């Protein structure tokens, strides 16, 4: 049993969505709760059972009411649990907190949540185990943590207990005082925040608050109070630097009560773990920032201890304090010291790389006492960071890649500020880049290669204007490429990104020219086919640049196809041939085509005659014909036609474009992925009800009704399908590219094996302005359980591109599998009733999977009638006008039945159920629960 649960829980936590698609969340929740109440289960297993509730409460408790009920169940488990199993009790209150907070019970102050808070406060105050073994103490600590979380999620909820919490903290001598301190400062901070939002609140209110006299503190209207609580701004950090706006409470200098609370917290801060100390200091900072009556110097005594710390979070919170209080707490000396500290820590041999990188980030966002630029997010170096100081952070080849790039970035910012373009600093950076390049040259790992190109980009981004270096880099890159042609994608990526980010800069063009030169002048003898394929890629990119002359490119092409030793033409490699044609095609579009006419024609003709692949020959011939017969204008219009993107007209993909391995080709041959779902399936109401009403019920089957009903199933495929109708509609927000889409192929994939695989469905087109097409899903159940179906689609957009999109999942609800009794339409009511009777008797008597059950609820007669009319009319076997008992037969393909006898007994409504598939019961139960409760509300 235990191992079964271990497996199931781990399956759930691994992927809740796929786990729940195989079962019903309500059913799973019910199972969990049942097992938790079971005395035979060990506490080890029970702790495990709580983990889905702790981690995914919203999946299991979809509504506030389910959350409330689950919480009540868990609380009863808690009361029955002996105090000695304290681990389990701790886990249990954590689970309770998760359920109540996440299902919004806490924010709506539900009954259960208020009871639970009382319970937690009780546990917190329970010091009965003063001489015990400390287990009770763990419970108290966890209870505090839960209260903390509740207050954090629902600020202000505990403000009336402020005095109690302060008392508890002061009395506590064991390590538990830490939990109380954390809770107290959070509640205090939230309460002060609320006061700042209250007009006219001042010192008196603050004092009342601290004395636990909340009726005075909140004399203003309660509504405003709740408004503040629901505002998410109260949950966010109030320390945003000197420019951030912090709401303030005007108390005047007289707030000694608050001051004494804060001093006592500060005094004991040393006793907290570094993590809790950091949190405490941050909350204290916020409180002091909100109450100008308290001077920031209250922190002064702690400062020296914090400045020397080796704990990352303590130094960090000191920086945040500096951010909030600037020179009212930190002298210029402190500031210089802190910055030096950060530089030291950014390269300290005893710290881990992530810590050092974090400190470097802190340098880039150093909270200066007198910042010059006010931008919040802009990375800039603090004025105090002198080049001499920064030189401790120069990159070296011994750095890991993240550190190296971070240091390079920091130095670049520094040199940029200095305006130092010819200095030694820049020379060092360039030497460093060269050192990296040499490592790449000698066959460095992929990581180093990527790092080098990122470093090169950073260098160019900041210093491309320093001609000497950028020209040299370009030269070195060309040589590097020649040695390692497989770096082509990296180099082209660098070219593209430089052009994208620095459109004004000519460096990238220069590099392309250089590449063209080294490729065309390198001796052909050593050229391998792999090199050639890279060269062709580079040359194709070069040919896209109108400003670069293409003579040498053509010279190179001509040489490789005509030279006697060349294997290229005889081997007839299609890919390489295509590579050559790709270059030619771009040259055809080149502005200087006129001067290239003859060499290009020669190349094309040679390919036409001698290339060892017919396809390449044909296409070369086409290009040759185009080149020799069309005028320049027509040629470019024809070729450019396909290359251009956008515009209103539907583009035709011309043959010449499909041909070459060009951007255009990749574009149409690639299936693009949409970022967002483009359309969705929404349920269309079925016409089942109307059909039923117009029936002639005449045929009478007599005694043999059940027999002839059964006989129908001998025919294979009888009544085995469910048809579900959906509208295919565009999603919002709409994307103009997908206004009109064509040839949509919907593909369905199941998330479980309850149904047979679905066929793909084709929809010819979908226009936004036209009525949505109806899509009919034919589901063939193996077991008629609820399920989720993943849907994806491939379609063509107006501009001829093919797209793949994932659509929102389709959820098949349990009730969607209901069908009326599958008998010929002409059967009379009495025959149907005979079948019902026959089945009922069978289900009640024998057979292993049959089961009967009873569901009760309180529904008035009118409500019941409305419910049956709304949900069960098509399945009704008896007459609706029949007063005493209504009979409903639900058929669920392929072979399952659920029979209902509904009757009112005094003030309760009973649903007597019988079914031949017992696994359907939990689903039926939750369905009835939903429909009856919604009916209940609507009638009331």
């Amino acid at each position, binding site marked *: 049993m235990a191992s079964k649960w271990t497996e199931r829980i781990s399956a759930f936590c691994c992927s809740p969505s796929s786990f729940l698609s195989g079962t019903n969340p309500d059913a799973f929740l019910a199972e969990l709760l049942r097992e938790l109440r079971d005395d035979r289960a060990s506490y080890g297993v029970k702790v495990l059972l709580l983990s889905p509730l702790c981690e995914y409460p919203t999946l299991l408790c979809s509504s506030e009411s389910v959350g409330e009920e689950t919480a009540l169940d868990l609380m009863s488990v808690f009361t029955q649990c002996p105090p000695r199993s304290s681990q389990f009790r701790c886990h249990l209150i954590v689970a309770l907190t998760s359920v109540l907070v996440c299902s919004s019970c806490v924010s709506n102050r539900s009954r259960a949540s208020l009871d639970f808070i009382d319970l937690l406060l009780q546990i917190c105050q329970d010091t009965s185990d003063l001489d015990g073994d400390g287990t009770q103490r763990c419970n108290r600590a966890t209870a505090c943590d839960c209260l903390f979380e509740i207050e954090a999620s629902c600020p202000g909820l505990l403000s009336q207990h402020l005095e109690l919490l302060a008392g508890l903290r002061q009395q506590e001598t064991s390590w538990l005082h830490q939990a109380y301190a954390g809770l107290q400062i959070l509640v205090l901070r939230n309460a002060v925040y609320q006061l700042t939002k209250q007009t006219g609140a001042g010192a008196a209110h603050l004092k009342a608050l601290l004395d636990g006299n909340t009726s005075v503190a909140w004399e203003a209207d309660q509504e405003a109070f709740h408004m503040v609580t629901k505002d998410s701004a109260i949950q966010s950090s109030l320390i945003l630097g000197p420019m951030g706006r912090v709401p303030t409470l005007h108390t005047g200098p007289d707030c000694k009560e608050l001051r004494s609370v804060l001093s006592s917290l500060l005094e004991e801060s040393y006793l907290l773990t570094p*993590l809790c100390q950091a949190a405490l200091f941050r909350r204290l900072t916020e409180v002091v920032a909100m109450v100008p009556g308290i001077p920031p110097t209250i922190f002064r005594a702690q400062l020296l201890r914090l400045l020397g710390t080796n704990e990352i979070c303590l130094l960090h919170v000191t920086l945040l304090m500096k951010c909030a209080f600037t020179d009212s707490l930190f002298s210029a000396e402190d500031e210089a010291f802190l910055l030096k500290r950060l530089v030291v820590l950014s390269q300290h041999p005893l710290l881990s790389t992530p810590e050092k990188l974090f400190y470097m980030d802190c340098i880039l966002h150093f909270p200066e006492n007198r910042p010059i630029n006010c931008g919040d997010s802009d990375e800039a170096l603090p004025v105090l960071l002198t080049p001499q100081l920064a030189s401790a952070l120069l990159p070296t080849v011994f750095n890991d890649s993240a550190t190296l790039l971070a240091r390079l970035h920091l130095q670049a910012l520094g040199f940029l500020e200095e305006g130092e373009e010819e200095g030694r600093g820049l020379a060092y950076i360039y030497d460093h880049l060269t050192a990296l390049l040499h490592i790449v040259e000698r066959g460095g790992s992929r990581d180093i290669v990527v790092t080098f190109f990122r470093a090169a980009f950073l260098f160019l981004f900041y210093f491309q204007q320093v001609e000497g270096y950028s020209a040299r880099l370009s030269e070195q890159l060309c040589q590097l490429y020649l040695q390692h042609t497989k770096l082509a994608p990296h180099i082209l990526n660098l070219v593209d990104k430089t052009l994208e980010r620095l459109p004004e800069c000519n460096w990238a063009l220069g590099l392309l020219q250089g590449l063209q030169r080294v490729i065309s002048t390198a001796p052909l003898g050593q050229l391998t086919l792999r090199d050639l394929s890279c060269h062709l890629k580079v040359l194709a990119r070069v040919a896209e640049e109108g400003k670069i002359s293409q003579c040498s490119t053509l010279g190179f092409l001509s040489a490789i196809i005509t030279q006697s030793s060349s294997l290229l033409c005889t081997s007839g490699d299609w890919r390489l041939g295509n590579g050559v044609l790709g270059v030619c095609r771009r040259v055809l579009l080149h502005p200087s085509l006129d001067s290239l006419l003859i060499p290009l024609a020669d190349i094309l003709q040679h390919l036409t005659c001698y290339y060892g692949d017919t396809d390449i020959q044909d296409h070369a011939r086409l290009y040759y014909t185009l080149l020799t017969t069309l005028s320049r204008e027509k040629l470019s219009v024809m070729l450019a036609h396909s290359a251009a993107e956008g515009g209103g007209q539907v583009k035709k993909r011309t043959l010449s474009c499909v041909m070459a391995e060009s951007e255009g080709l990749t574009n149409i041959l690639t299936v693009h992925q949409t970022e967002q779902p483009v359309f969705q399936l929404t349920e269309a109401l079925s016409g089942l009800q109307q059909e039923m009403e117009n029936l002639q019920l005449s045929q009478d089957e007599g005694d043999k009704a059940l027999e002839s009903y059964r006989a129908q199933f001998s025919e294979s495929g009888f009544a085995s399908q469910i048809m579900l109708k959906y509208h295919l509609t565009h999603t919002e927000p709409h994307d103009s590219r997908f206004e009109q889409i064509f040839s949509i192929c919907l593909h369905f994939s199941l998330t479980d094996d309850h149904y047979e695989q679905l066929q793909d469905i084709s929809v010819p087109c979908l226009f936004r302005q036209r009525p949505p097409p109806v899509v009919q899903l034919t589901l063939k159940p193996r077991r008629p359980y609820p399920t989720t179906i993943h849907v994806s689609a491939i379609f063509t957009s107006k501009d001829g591109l093919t797209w793949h999109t994932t659509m929102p999942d389709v959820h098949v609800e349990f009730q969607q599998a209901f069908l009326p009794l599958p008998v010929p339409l002409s059967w009379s009511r009495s025959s149907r009733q005979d079948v019902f009777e026959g089945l009922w008797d069978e289900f009640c008597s024998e057979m292993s999977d049959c089961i009967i059950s009873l569901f009760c609820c309180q529904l008035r007669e009118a409500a019941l009638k409305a419910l049956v009319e709304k949900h069960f009319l098509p399945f009704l076997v008896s007459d609706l006008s029949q007063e005493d008992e209504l009979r409903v037969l639900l058929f669920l393909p392929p072979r399952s039945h659920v029979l209902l006898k509904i009757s009112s007994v005094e003030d309760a409504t009973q649903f007597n159920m019988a079914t031949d598939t017992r696994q359907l019961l939990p689903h039926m139960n939750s369905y009835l629960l939903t429909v009856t409760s919604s009916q209940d509300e609507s009638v009331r």
Partner: protein
Amino acid sequence: MSLRALWIISNEKGQKASIRFSKRFSTVEHRARNLAGSSYVAVPEDSDFLQRLLTELGLSNSDKSYVADRDDCLYRPRSPAVELRLNGKGTLWPVLVLSQGPLILACLPLVDILSEPRPPLANLLSVSQGVTLLAGLQTFLLGSGVKLDSAGLASRVATLPSLLLQVCPLGTPLDTPLAGTPTASTVPTSTVTQKQPAWKTGVYRGRATVNVAVVETVRSMQYGNQSRQDLWDVYGTVTCKCEVEGALPNVTVTLSLPPNGSPLQDILVHPCVTSLDSSILTASSVDNADGSAFSGPYKFPFSPPLEPFRLCSYTSQVPVPPILGSYQLKEEENNLRVSVSLKLHESVRNSFEYCEAHLPFFNRNQMGVVDVKVSSGQVDVSKEKNLLVWGLGQKFPKSREVTFDGKISFTGSSNGPSDPLCTGLTAYIKLYLKVPDTTLSGCCVDQHSVQVYSSAKPRIVTSRELQSKEYFIWNSTGSAPVSSGQVMM
């Protein structure tokens, strides 16, 4: 200041990476949803998360040399916080990642600042808290040992649920897991009147003992070249183990330097240190120290935790490296002529626990004939035949100088290891040494300077030690990489 989720991933060589443990903090997630509003990005399920994290860290598709998503030069990974792009479902940020050996630890801190574009990392306290927790978990899971024992790891992973209940029950980190449980007998406090620190789970009972160990580590880069300045630096740590009675006992440890010793710099202290004199913190390695700097004694009053801890660390600028070396290689026909000399500085105690010089050779065949003469110690060829180990024993000879001369032919049948840095004549010697009972800076803790305010007379043990790390001597006839920009400038 809270975390939304936590993952522990194992990524052993030759095996598929898998999630060993994951935990979502639902109430923090609830807050995240409220705070972020329409820009909320949900945490993906484990398998999806794993795949995207591996891509981000460059660990996926390792067989392909260029993957546009992974290798774009525009993109600069901002470790320790990376971002995961979820197809069409927004970007998950900031995912903190720590990896060591076969383990990758990750967590997602709550962003409690509403700003567009995203706030800087430096403004989010949850980031440093997350890093602290992850580092603590990492130490807990892997121990301090270098080798991973997988059975031990599995059993430690199994204890995580109950461990997290204490250190991070609902997503707000409260403490880091204790790396080692205190061995001494402790009792839970009950009748003390003094408040007990939260970082101390009990109170020690028994004879008071204080153990203070100063360990200095020296690093060096020696080029043997006029144009290249040699580099060395020293950093020290002071580790304490205190067994003292009382909830909040007072102990003071004093570090002192010899007369004319250069001041201790960059002092970092453990949070249990109760107060500090500001003069202790002034000396820093990154600015020009003036002669008038404070040079001790350095007093550290503290109240000790139960487990051993690092009281403080410092760096120091010592005038000379302990061993000055020269390394020369000459290519001769089929041989490599090697000559090395090492000189121990007279101020260093000539009594080693061990001292070894390693001479690795990269990008060559395996070694064939090795013909060397050493003036002291002995030379071994490693099993893989690409490394010479020159063991120098416990003592340098009286002259304090040792030499190594020889010829090596690389005629082995198979290739040795490759290294992109050490090609041609770029080569190094790496020194491994440990000298007990000495420090380079001269820093020491006098037994009598340790003060314990308790009734019984405590037993006090102090020790010191010098060891090396990254101690390189580069071949002076080849080019050597720059290891510090500061000196170059």
